[in-house]
């Protein structure tokens, strides 16, 4: 299969504390990979390391064969690897439309533009001149994903997208991810909501205490109650 993103032996520190220990990952084109684990296990740190917000002390990240380990976050984004952060980070005093246009800063060509985004997220079209800060939590989650899509990324990293959303909103999110898959996006997801993760992912990687400790396709994972108990406390 075609590999798009490879991380080898990442070791990341937060100040003096060692967070990631030799994390290696492989992501195939057009798959949805779910990174699972408890709080503080290192999911967000992994994501931040991949998009160069945090610099690993050692290890290497290859994206489409290009070494991006030493690049800056904006360079990584321009290459097509984009993070949708856990805390959403909408620009509150910019309008919805401006928030979306900010996403186009990668200057990448692709299927995503304002029209396409509005078709995918009709809510945003109705609210396009509202300020980002006036949207509800669910709408903000939509906006933050849409904003990243505007940059036509090849790979999207979604950090805990279901967090703080009402069940009905999580369903909408599920539908959205399935639609994204259908247009050929590669998605890496981090989740604690097992039910939700199982409903959208192709493959699962579990991280615990900063190391990868389990990896399998989704069907195997679904059956493995032991693993779920041991690392996810479900």
């Amino acid at each position, binding site marked *: 299969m075609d590999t798009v993103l490879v991380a080898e032996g990442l070791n990341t520190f937060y100040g003096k504390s060692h967070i990631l220990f030799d994390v290696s990952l492989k992501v195939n084109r057009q798959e949805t990979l779910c990174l699972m684990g408890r709080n503080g296990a290192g999911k967000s740190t992994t994501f931040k390391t991949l998009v160069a917000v945090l610099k690993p002390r050692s290890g290497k990240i290859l994206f489409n064969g290009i070494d991006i380990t030493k690049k800056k976050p*904006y360079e990584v*984004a321009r290459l097509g690897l984009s993070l949708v952060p856990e805390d959403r980070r909408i*620009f509150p005093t910019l309008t919805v439309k401006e928030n979306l246009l900010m996403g186009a*800063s990668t*200057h990448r060509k692709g299927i995503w533009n304002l029209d396409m985004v509005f078709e995918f997220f009709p809510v945003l079209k109705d609210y396009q001149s509202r300020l980002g800060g006036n949207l509800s939590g669910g709408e903000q989650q939509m906006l933050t994903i849409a904003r990243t899509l505007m940059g036509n990324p090849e790979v999207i990293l979604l950090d805990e997208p279901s967090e703080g959303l009402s069940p009905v909103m999580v369903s909408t999110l599920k539908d959205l991810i399935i639609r994204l898959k259908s247009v050929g996006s590669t998605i890496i997801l981090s989740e604690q909501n097992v039910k939700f993760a199982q409903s959208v992912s192709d493959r699962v990687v579990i991280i615990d205490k900063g190391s990868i400790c389990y990896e399998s396709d989704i069907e195997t994972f679904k059956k493995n109650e032991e693993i779920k108990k041991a690392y996810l406390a479900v």
Partner: protein
Amino acid sequence: MEIYISQFIGGLSVAMLLFLVASGLSLIFGVANIFNFAHGSFYLLGSYIAYQTISLFPNFWIGLITATIGAGLIGAILEFIFLKRLYGRVNEGPFQILLTYSFILILDDAVKFIWGPEYKTIVKPDILEGSFVIGSIFIPKYNVFIIIVGIAIALLAWYVLNKTKAGMIVRASSLDRTMVGLLGVNVSMVMTAVFGIATALGGLAGAMAAPLRTVTPGAGIEVIIDSLIVVVLGGLGNFWGALLGALIIGEVNAFGILWIPQWASLLSFAIMIIVLIFKPQGLFSKSR
């Protein structure tokens, strides 16, 4: 009646020069959350660079341009080498004050070292010499020029900030630098550019003020407090606010001089006290 009109117009040109000086401070202060204590030093640099250029190529307009570019470049370089290191650090705000204050000490002394302590002067271009006379009211052409430039800068800044992609990126950067970077914008460059533009505005103001004022070491210090008042009065980061603030200070002073000349020099502080007590976030704040 005529006296009120002429006093009003006088106040207007004071206000516009104030606004011109404060506009750069307003830009970085409000939009990029950087407090540049050294803004007055870039104003001073602007005056001296214009003086230097004009003494080499006797053309006022070239002087204006080199002053703007020169002050902007120096600002951008200082931001790139020093200010950048503070972003995201603990107590970033207080240390910005300390750092930009050290810029004042260094730049002002450098000016004295390079150009000496004596006063320099820039002559207005011929086309701006003289005044328009309406009845008994004099309006110096140069003041009209300043008013036009001031309005042009306010309009341009409003347009760029609110209607262009670059302005949008700047506004977004002021809110969340990390996120802007994640979206593929070279934020570091944006900050350098914003700082450079702001100091360029300071330089432009210095060059434009030079034909009306004394160009001497230490002249930068005096403008900083006035600019601060203007910026805060209108509400942070709001160009229209800064313009309104400048107008209020200019006009209140103009009429204060007429009616209570003894106390005129304290009026700007009195105005700020009154405004802040009744509108604690400045005049153009959105009440939350």
